[in-house]
């Protein structure tokens, strides 16, 4: 029972840690399916996190914060779009640039606005997204197993968490069951086929970028005003890259993406517990080793399990009408 509770708690923090990954990963899924590589996810997370925190701090409303977060992500997507869709520039470079831009501007503006070295003011409870207890959570708390699962694991997360988890089935449906999804997949594979069918490739790719922005913007918002209470420098801490890696394992599919992100979340959650524990044989493992574990595992998975992942054929290639 004790172990069971521990497990539930670990899973609980797994969920919390996985949320930004899931949102970023799905965001990446839309843009890459449409043929646009988005290394810039990291920067968008960061930018959104900053905007959300700043707005929430000023306006006092987390919802306005969310809007601001999404807004900034949209602007960054727009830049990415202009660079890679209209100007046919290199998408990877554009993404890298956006990451630098976010890293620099967030701190720079934060400093000149709040004079706290890029930190935004601490947010009070009502400026943040707080856990919401689902109906009956407390009542069933004591029902063995299921009760615990429900009240701890399912209930008691903030709204954005639920958004993230709902986004997965929605994405799966959009991608495989709708006209938009069909075209999205097509434009990532062979844009010319769409163009000759009289559908605007540019338009479609921009739509994809918008969805990307909304999702990743939400992810960033989660970081700064749901998971923690305020923004601080580089708080995205590589999550955008991890999300991309996750996307590759997941072979650009929604459900696998969810699983992979949860796996990463789990690894992260575990490492806090593993610290300081003396293992049999090996003795105490240096914390650095434990902290590098997720990355190392990512690589092993990349190399071993999935081997060559076939990306959408046209991803990374700007579409030019003149052949």
């Amino acid at each position: 029972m004790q172990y069971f509770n521990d497990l539930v708690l670990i899973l609980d923090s797994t969920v919390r840690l996985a949320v930004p990954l899931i949102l970023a990963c799905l965001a990446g899924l839309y843009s890459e399916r449409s043929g646009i590589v988005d290394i810039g996810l990291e920067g968008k997370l960061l930018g959104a996190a900053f905007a959300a925190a700043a707005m929430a701090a000023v306006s006092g409303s987390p919802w306005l914060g969310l809007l601001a977060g999404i807004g900034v992500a949209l602007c960054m997507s727009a830049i990415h779009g202009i660079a890679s869709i209209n100007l046919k520039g290199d998408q990877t470079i554009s993404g890298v640039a956006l990451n630098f831009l976010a890293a620099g501007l967030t701190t720079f503006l934060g400093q000149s606005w709040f004079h706290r070295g890029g930190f935004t003011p601490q947010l009070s409870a009502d400026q943040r997204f707080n856990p919401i207890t689902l109906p009956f959570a407390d009542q069933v708390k004591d029902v063995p197993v299921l009760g615990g699962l429900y009240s701890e694991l399912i209930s008691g997360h903030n709204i954005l968490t639920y958004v993230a988890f709902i986004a997965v089935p929605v994405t799966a449906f959009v991608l495989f069951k709708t006209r938009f999804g069909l075209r999205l997949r097509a434009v990532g594979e062979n844009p010319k086929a769409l163009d000759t069918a009289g559908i605007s490739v540019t338009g479609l790719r921009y739509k994809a970028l918008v969805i990307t922005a909304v999702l990743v913007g939400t992810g960033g918002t989660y970081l700064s005003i749901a998971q923690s209470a305020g923004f601080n420098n580089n708080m995205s801490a590589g999550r955008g890259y991890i999300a991309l890696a996750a996307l590759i394992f997941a072979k650009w599919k929604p459900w696998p993406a969810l699983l992979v992100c949860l796996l990463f979340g789990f690894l992260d959650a575990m490492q806090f517990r593993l610290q300081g524990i003396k293992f049999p044989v090996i003795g105490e493992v240096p914390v650095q080793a434990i902290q590098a574990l997720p990355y190392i595992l990512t690589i092993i998975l990349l190399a071993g399990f999935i081997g060559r992942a076939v990306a959408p054929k046209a991803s990374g290639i700007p579409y030019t009408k003149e052949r």
Partner: protein
Amino acid sequence: YDGGGKFDKSFNEAAYNGAEMYKKETGGTYGEFEITNDAQREQALRQFASRGYSPIVTPGYNFVTALQAVAPEFPDLHFVILDAVVDLPNVRSVLFKEQEGSYLVGMLAAMKSESGTIGVIPAFNLDLLEAFACGYKQGAHAARPDIKVLETYIGSGFDAFNDPAKATEVAKSQLDQGADVLYQVAGGAGAGVLQAAADAGKWGIGVDSNQNYLHPGNVLTSMTKRVDVATYNAFMDEKNGKWTAGVLNLGLAEDGVGAAFDDNNKALITPEMTAAVDKARADIVAGTLKVHDFREDKACPV
């Protein structure tokens, strides 16, 4: 200021506050600079020196090498280094006995704890931070031998000072493991720890500056490390021509460290807690109670 950045919510910021305090009281001015990479330490020092700034306060032992190089070049200027010793005629080295302050907050934590489990959360495993943690543990065990102290690092490098999201997660995991008082030794990221503790209706302990105000009622106390005072004094002494070189070792006796009590946490502290802490402080000051310093032998008795 050091890599952590001027506004790291603790160490560097405290220095800054000290300087500001001086500015306000005396109307004197001062220059400042945040270094971005190691090569700039020496450079910045030299720039200040060549413009005749004095004293020049360098927070953090990372400046040792730079200072050793630059100080001799400007024998008639005064330098101050915090947290480290540079043995030069024109350098004042200011050390703090973090273990002593941590010892007191450790006691408070242990006495406050209802679950019998408390936690300490350093940014990453840095000797300096270990010193905090170690003092904390000693104090806790002294106050309550059966106490269980969890210790979890947030990250593995300086960027850990800037990841409150992760800090929150670490705090949550300690809370999940039953800890109900959390001592953060993580600069900027610490905010996340205090936040988590407050959200959970448990208690956090601030560090370096007095952070009790952050979540009144949920910050048990703060282990204050009066970098600001040290900085302030340096400036004042210079102004009043009372400058002295050599090593200052600031502990409880010198009020260089301590546990912060104010209106924000009055309600949390019971008389017997106060009593116990006062006694311990007295013993330490008197030297009858010796708090072990992790840095001496890289080990902690408890």
